[in-house]
């Protein structure tokens, strides 16, 4: 047994156990915070009574069920899955593009989704349609970016980034046109609010439908962890190690785009988390993607649950979550970068 191996295994196991414990603690804290304050004891008592470990108190159980299961739990689940998805997508993008500053918006996914959502809002469509349009817009923008990259000839990291920039700029301009054309008393505020992000409108059935899809996308990326490491070392490096570069690159982009477009379609624009969570996770478990992607998922989930809890409890009216993630994300990112510069040990 190699000693270095045992140390490495023990360290990683400990870090992941710590992250899971932090996630559970954040969930319980988030469940207890709200307009109707609950203690951790209330929550544990409810769980015990549901598990038939304690004597049931019907009236109190119904009240708690309504608050915890119907109101708070869907939001917490949504925050966990969306935070995880955006972070995993960001980490995967950073490896694919060999760029620590890559984030899920790099290829235009967020710009396209914003345009799609704004279009649906102006057309006065239902909330489901807004989400559908946002998802289609996100996927469409990345497809356009990849297509434009193809015009430059041989597809490479640089041509893809250029294609994404062009596609993103196009959809941002198109979004401006929609905002300009929108009814300033009714539609424009709706667009602006959507752009600031919110988890308030997500119901339990909706998150139960989309969560498996997002988890599948994240799992697919995590399984590609090792070849993604080779790709992060460089295109020729990956080829030299027997990795089919084009297939891996487009596969990873497709999976990362899919989960980030789904996230944005559910919750609107939530910035920074896809950039900062992977860096935070990298400081803990190192840059190897087989560990980095699951760790990013946990960090992102914890961060977004905490941010959403602040968003709904800081003031009497809810603060858009995109504002919170930006305000918290910027100082966190500065701290992380200061340490990341010195290497991760």
């Amino acid at each position: 047994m190699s000693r270095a191996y045992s140390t490495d295994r023990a360290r990683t196991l400990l870090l992941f156990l710590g992250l899971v414990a932090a996630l559970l603690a954040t969930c319980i804290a988030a469940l207890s915070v709200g307009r109707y304050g609950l203690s951790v004891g209330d929550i544990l008592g409810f769980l015990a009574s549901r598990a038939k470990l304690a004597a049931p108190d019907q009236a109190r159980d119904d009240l708690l069920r309504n608050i915890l299961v119907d109101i708070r739990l869907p939001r917490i689940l949504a925050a966990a899955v969306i935070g995880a998805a955006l972070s995993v997508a960001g980490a995967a993008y950073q490896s694919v593009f060999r760029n620590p500053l890559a984030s899920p918006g790099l290829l235009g996914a967020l710009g396209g989704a914003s345009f799609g959502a704004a279009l649906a809002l102006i057309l006065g469509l239902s909330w489901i349609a807004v989400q559908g349009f946002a998802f289609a817009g996100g996927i469409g923008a990345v497809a356009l970016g990849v297509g434009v990259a193809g015009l430059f000839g041989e597809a490479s990291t640089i041509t893809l980034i250029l294609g994404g920039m062009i596609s993103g700029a196009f959809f941002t301009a198109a979004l401006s046109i929609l905002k300009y054309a929108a009814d300033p008393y009714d539609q424009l505020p709706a667009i602006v609010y959507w752009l600031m992000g919110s988890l308030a409108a997500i119901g339990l059935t909706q998150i139960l439908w989309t969560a498996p899809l997002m988890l599948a996308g994240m799992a697919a990326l995590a399984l590609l962890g090792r070849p993604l490491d080779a790709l992060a070392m460089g295109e020729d490096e990956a080829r030299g190690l027997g990795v089919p570069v084009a297939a891996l690159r487009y596969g990873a982009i497709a999976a990362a785009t899919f989960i980030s477009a789904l996230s944005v379609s559910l919750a609107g624009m939530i910035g920074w988390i896809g950039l900062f969570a992977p860096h935070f996770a990298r400081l803990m478990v190192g840059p190897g993607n087989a560990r980095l992607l699951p760790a990013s998922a946990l960090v992102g989930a914890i961060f977004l649950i905490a941010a959403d809890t602040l968003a709904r409890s800081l003031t009497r009216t809810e603060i858009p979550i995109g504002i919170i993630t930006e305000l918290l994300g910027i100082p966190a990112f500065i701290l992380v970068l200061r340490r990341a510069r010195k290497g991760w040990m």
Partner: protein
Amino acid sequence: MRARLAATALVFARNQKRRVLDGATLAFGPGEIVSLLGANGSGKTTLLRLMLGFLRPEAGTVALEGRELRAWSRRDIARKVAYVAQNHVAPFPYRVRDVVLLGRLPRAGWLTPVTSHDFASADALLDQLGILTLAERSYTEVSGGERQLVLIARALAQGASLLVMDEPMAGLDYGAQIRLMRLLQELKRKGLGVLLSTHHPEHAFWASDAIALLEQGRIAVNGAPRDVLDAEAIERLYRVKVSALAAPDGRCAFLPE
């Protein structure tokens, strides 16, 4: 012809305009060091990338063990031929051992977890190259010479018998250059074949079994160092006047005039 990598009459043009390579023929196999010399922009890197299967030639063939390269899967090539890039930089701080462990990718597959045995073999390779103390260091923080050694350790972890190196001496200090050539000679004695491009005629002279000169898209001369490399060849290749100094043991050094 066992385990030989052979390029025959390769033609390659970038952007359909100037032909970078125009009928280049070159081969190497286990137990030999072949140095590729040529001026900047003469197509050395292109030739190496074609021979690795990273690029497709417009005409001509590359064959590994007598079978055309395009009939091989990328992964099978990687089990036979390893590649060491020029001045490689990584964007993320992988540990040195993790870089070496990437070498198991072509053999172990993508999903097989890293075992204690893998760790031990990676550390044994690092030890063999005298850099075991770097195992836990960040690959982004070690020196250029050390980085070349890490990449060689990774190549050995691939289990490849052939090594293609693009200007491995670039950016190394004088001592590191000499030590690297010595290491390559030692690996050669253990059966490894090395094809490397270089800008140092002297190194090529004393360390290679064969030297190939790339001029105008072709291998103009290919043979034993003392048959290939003289003042006239250097002059033709780099357009500078030099005089050759013969050492008593038959090696040769070149001094600019």
